[in-house]
Every structure is written in C-alpha cells, then in structure tokens.
C-alpha cells in the first residue's frame, strides 16, 4: 500500500492541469469529440455499405434535416401541435352536442321513470341528477375530443416524430440543467401526468429524474384539455369571426401548452440552482427510421388503450363526485345548501386570484381527477333545482358570462390555474410510489399549487389595476 501515496500527488496535479485545459476548451468538448466520432463512423460506413435503395434513405435524411433543423424544427413542431388541436376543436364540437342532447334526454327519462315508480325524491335526485348527470357531463365533454386527439397524436408517434421532438428540445433542457430525455417524459405528460411521472424511469441520474418528476405537472394532461379547449372556444374563439374561431381557439391552446413548457423549463432551471444542484448529463438518442403508420394498430392503441382507459378513470371518479355535488347542493343548513356555504367561504380566495368560489370548490372536489372540473362547475352553477338544458358551447357561454359574471380575466386565470395547479390524486400517489419520499411528494404537490395561486394573483391584480 506504500505505492499509493506517491502517485497520488502526481494524479492531483494531472487533474488540475486537465481541469485547466477543459476550461480552456469551453463547454462543448464532448459535442466536438462526439461529432468527430460520428463523422468517422459515417465515412467508414459509406465506404463499406452499398445501398441499392439509397434514394429512400436520402429522402428520410432530408426530412430529418428539416424536422430537426435549428431554424425550422421548433416552429414546425408548434405548427403540427396547432393542427392537432385545430382538428380536435373543429371535429369535437358537433358530436359533443349530439352526445349531450342524447345523454341528458336519458336523464329526464330515467328520473321520470323513477318518479312514476314511486321512488323517494332523494334517491331519484342522487342517482339521476347527481351520479348520472356527472357521468353524462364527463362523457359528452371528454369523449369526442379524445376520440380525435388520441388517434392523431398516435399517428405522429407511430411515424417516429416524438423522438425528433425530444431531439429538438434537448438543448433547452440542457440549458435548464435538466436531462434531455425530460422532453420525452414531458410529452408523455400530455397524455397523463401519472404516466409521465412513471416514464421518468428512463432517466438514470436521480437528480435529473427528480426534476422531471417535479415538473411533469406543468404540461396539461388530457384531463385538462377539455377545460382549456372549452375556455379557448368560448372566450377567445367567440371574439373572432366564425371562419377564424377554431384557428384562434387552437392557437390559444398551443399558447397555453407553450406557457406550460416555459414553466417546466423555468422551474427545472430554478430547481437545479437550489435544491437539486448539478450538471446536466449527456445521452444518446436514437432517431428511428420513419415508418408508415399502421391504421389498425393506431385505432386499437388510441381507442382501446387510451381513450377508453382515460374515460373509464374519469367515469370512476365522476360518479362519486356527482353524488357528492348533489348532496352538497341539496342538503340545507341554516337555510342555505352546503354547496352555497362552501362557495361563500371560498369566494374571497377565488376572487383574489381572479376566479370565484364555485371554481375553487370545483378544484377541491376534482382533486381525484382533473377531468371533472368543468362538469362540477356546471353542476354548481346550474344548482339542484333549475334544470337548464346546456348542450352546446353557446349555452355554456351564456350561463358563465350572463348569469355568473365571467370576464376575460376569469377565463385567462382559469386556464392558468388549470395549467399550474397541484397534480391530481393519482399523480400525487405515483410521485410518492416513484420517490418513496414524503418530502418530494409534498414539494411536487405544493410547488405547483403555490405557483398557481401566485401567478393567478399577480395576473388578477395587474389586470384590475390596468383595466379602465
């Protein structure tokens, strides 16, 4: 063991010299070494491989050069995203309305049937105006957009576009001190944040994985799209001529998504400079060849694995939530219903951040799943007794603006709150399962929640100060 003391100092001075050289070479030494490696690999393989179908491969590479170019990569990505939302908004409107009409007709019919059979008032109310109405809302609001969004999104996935997205976003995440693969787990979050949190297993470094877990919530999951799409259509789309309404609404949703990505990067950056300090690690990303999407598989994975799966989860939480809302709205205490007490109690808080008590109550009830925020709000606004038929966006707009005093500020802040607030119960549970730490679970829950309140409060205060 005597041999180890003498070379130690030599090793230390060597390290010191290498650190000097490393600083002199700048940050991208690895990139430069890797690109010389790749250049050599390309030269050698070109000499060794003769491709009879070289043209097609060239075509692939040409597409890749465009899709992943510094200049066009990101704008192209946003354009594609906007097109997906445009198709969703345009296509979902009519089926949503038809579904709502059909399902609410069943509610009237069912309730009537119960009454003639002599069932007690509370049972009819609880089952048909509570549980069933909650389900009808969730299905009519969620099913059509999902049935369009998921297949289109799956086509992009099947084509091999998602790895290119990760490639385009890599430098942004590295600048934020996070792992480039976070772009992938973020993309998973667009489907479901709980799935996104599980997907962070692909990140090896525990530090970068925690960053990805804690920030996954900042991209809207499909449970939140109905809220965003509805608000974009009612408040932004309606302000444009009908021909441009869907385009404006789609652009708004893309704007919100971009804002979410912005918050993801900002919070990642903040975390790497405070509680999770360290350097970003590099990784190799394989860009698979483009494939012709297979229609049957897309229909299967998007409709069975995703649409039905997500809808089923929404139904499971919507049924009890519907019952809870009915009970809150119909049990009186001191002349007012429990819901009215809760709304009155939450109203000052809601008002301070540009929202109101009903929205706050909806978010408390919707902790198990974001999908039921809009249905809960609608049911609270509609109350228990007055059974107004609400089947299309115009009816919703009249209800919110004319009867409940919503303004553009309410819409903007609800979008912000929806984007930033705490993850749903499933995601919180998943964070705990993945980290096994109460501390990180609490941070993953409270950090977004406090950001939602802060941002909404700031926007509301500014808006009110600047408004005439």
């Amino acid at each position, binding site marked *: 063991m005597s041999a*180890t003391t003498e070379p130690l100092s030599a*090793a230390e001075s*060597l390290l010191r010299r290498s650190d000097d050289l*490393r600083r002199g070479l700048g940050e991208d030494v690895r990139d430069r070494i890797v690109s010389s490696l790749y250049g050599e690999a390309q030269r050698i393989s070109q000499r060794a491989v003769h491709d009879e179908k070289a043209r097609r491969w060239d075509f692939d590479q040409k597409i890749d050069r465009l899709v992943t170019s510094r200049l066009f990569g990101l704008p192209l990505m946003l354009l594609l995203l906007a097109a997906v939302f445009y198709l969703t908004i345009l296509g979902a409107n009519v089926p949503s309305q038809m579904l709502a009409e059909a399902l609410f007709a069943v509610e009237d019919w069912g309730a009537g049937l119960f009454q003639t059979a002599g069932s007690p008032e509370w049972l009819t109310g609880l089952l048909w105006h509570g549980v069933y109405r909650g389900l009808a809302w969730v299905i009519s609001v969620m099913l059509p957009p999902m049935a369009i969004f998921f297949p289109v999104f799956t086509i992009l996935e099947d084509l091999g576009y998602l790895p290119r997205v990760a490639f385009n976003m890599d430098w942004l995440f590295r600048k934020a001190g996070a792992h480039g693969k976070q772009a992938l787990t973020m993309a998973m979050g667009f489907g479901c944040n709980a799935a996104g949190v599980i997907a962070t297993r692909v990140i090896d*470094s525990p530090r970068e994985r925690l960053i990805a877990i804690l920030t996954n919530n900042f991209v809207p999951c499909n449970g939140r799209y109905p809220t965003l799409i509805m608000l974009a259509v009612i408040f932004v789309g309606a302000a444009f001529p009908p021909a441009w309404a869907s385009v404006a609404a789609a652009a708004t949703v893309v704007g919100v998504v971009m804002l979410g990505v912005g918050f993801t990067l900002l919070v990642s950056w903040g975390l790497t400079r405070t509680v999770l300090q360290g350097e970003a690690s*590099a*990784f*190799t990303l394989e860009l698979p060849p483009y494939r012709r999407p297979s229609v049957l598989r897309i229909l299967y994975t998007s409709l069975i694995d995703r649409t039905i799966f997500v809808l089923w989860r929404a139904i499971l939480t919507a049924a009890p939530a519907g019952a809870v809302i009915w009970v809150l709205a119909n049990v009186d205490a001191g002349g007012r219903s429990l819901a009215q007490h809760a709304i009155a109690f939450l109203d000052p808080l809601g008002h301070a951040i540009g929202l109101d008590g009903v929205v706050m109550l909806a978010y408390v009830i919707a902790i198990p799943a974001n999908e039921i925020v809009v249905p809960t709000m609608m049911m609270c606004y509609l109350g228990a007794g007055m059974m107004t038929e609400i089947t299309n966006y115009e009816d919703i707009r009249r209800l919110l603006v004319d009867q409940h005093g919503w303004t553009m500020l309410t819409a903007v802040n609800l979008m912000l709150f929806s984007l930033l607030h705490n993850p749903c119960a499933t995601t919180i549970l998943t964070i705990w399962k993945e980290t096994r730490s109460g501390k990180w679970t609490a941070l993953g829950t409270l950090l977004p929640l406090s950001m939602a309140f802060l941002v909404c409060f700031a926007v509301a205060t500014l808006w009110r100060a600047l408004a005439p």
Partner: protein
Amino acid sequence: MATGHDCETCPAHAQLAQMGISLGDADHLVALAGNPNTGKSSVFNALTGLRQHVGNWTGKTVARAEGGYRYAGKSYKLVDLPGSYSLLSASQDEEIARNFLLFGRPDCTIVVLDATALERNLNLALQVMEITDRVVLCVNLMDEARRKGLEVDVRSLSRDLGVPAVPTVARTKEGLPQLVQTVADVIAGEIVTKPLRVQPPPEVAQALDELTPLILEIAPGLPNARWVAMRLLDGDHEVRQALLRGELGLLAETQASPAERQSSLISIHGSQ
C-alpha cells in the same frame, strides 16, 4: 509482475471479483458489447448454448448474463455487457459496459454490429476500440441487410478499422464458427489488431497530446492513456476517481507486455 496465470494474487482478479465475476477454470475472458437490438443476445445464446448463468451486476439492477464455450481445447468465459449506444454518458448500462472493458480487461471484446444500421453502430465500436485493442467485429443481421438491398463490404470495414470483422446471421448460426476462430486468433496473437483511433478536432488533439504523457507517467504502459485523457477533458467523474485512487496505475502494471504477442501471422493495419 508475474507473466504466468497466478490469478489469486493478481490485482486484475480483485477487480473482477469486485464486479462479481470469477474467471473460474476458464482460460480466457471474452466480452460481448453492442447496441440494443443488434441480435447480441442471439450471438450470446448461440455461442454458449445451455452453459449460461443470469444474475445481476454487483450492486446494480441491470441484468448480467455470462456463459462459457470451448473451442480448440481452450475454454472461454463470455460476459454479455448491457446493450448501449455509447460509452460516454452516465447511464447505468453504459457505465457498467465501460467499467467492465476498462477494469475487467477482457482478453478479447466482440462488438456486435447491426449490418442494417452500420453507421450508428460504428460509434460504439470506435469507442470500444479506444479502450481496448483486442476487438473483433461481429457484423450481424446480414440476412436482413441483404433483404433490404444493402451490400455490406466486411473487408472494407476491417481494413478501415484495423480490427477483424466477421459477417454473421446469429439466428441461423451462420458465420459463428469463423467468429469463434477469429477471437481465438486475436487472443493467441495470430491476428494483431491495430484499431483506428479517431482524430479529434485540432484544439482537442493538442490538449490530448499534452495530457497523455502525464497519464503515462503515472501509469506507464497504460494502453488506453489517450482515452483516459479524453475522459478527463470531458470531466468524467468515474475516471477522475479511478485516477485518484491509483487504480489506473495498477491497470498498467497488469497489462500484458506487447512482446508476448509478436507471433503474428496476419497483421491488420488501421488507416492511421
């Protein structure tokens, strides 16, 4: 250092034991590296048959398969490294593969390449060749390449890279006898490899030229000093630690002297 096989006392043995590997009664240690989805497991299964053992890398959750085969009176131990695209980054799989090549010092390393995606696969091969000289390329999935209309010139590969390359179809065992023979020849010194070392950009090369002699001072005769220098310039934590603990010095001492391997019949020269 003793030139014979005094395994119990040789420091290499301690390093191997740390990784949970014992050479047992095998004569030679062969590593199997490659990108994911290159048919590496098919090669492993075809070579070892039923003589294999699956466990975990010590202290890691990554599966490790090892097995053995006999050829021309010698027994070989084959260790299947985790599939990886490079040896640069900090992923667990890549770290395991790299540490094994560096500290496990296999007698020969087979790099399995996907003939249909040679360019991507060569990146790993070039990196393996920075760490160890004794490399045999196994250009697998030749049948798929043929089906896709790709004509892979294995001799051109071998000439450019300075190491032998064997075309194979592991699923049907096509080419595997030649692979085993080539590995034996490389280990016996019948084939002398001269791996291509990629020339980095000038400013990096300059820094490498300055660091490499300093590393050789600490670890005389270290065959991969240039690679170590490259890792230091990249701020590689593991390599720094290995240097501080004096492990690289030990590596150099146990590396076999090149004089033993002069009985070459065939010599392949790299383009550099």
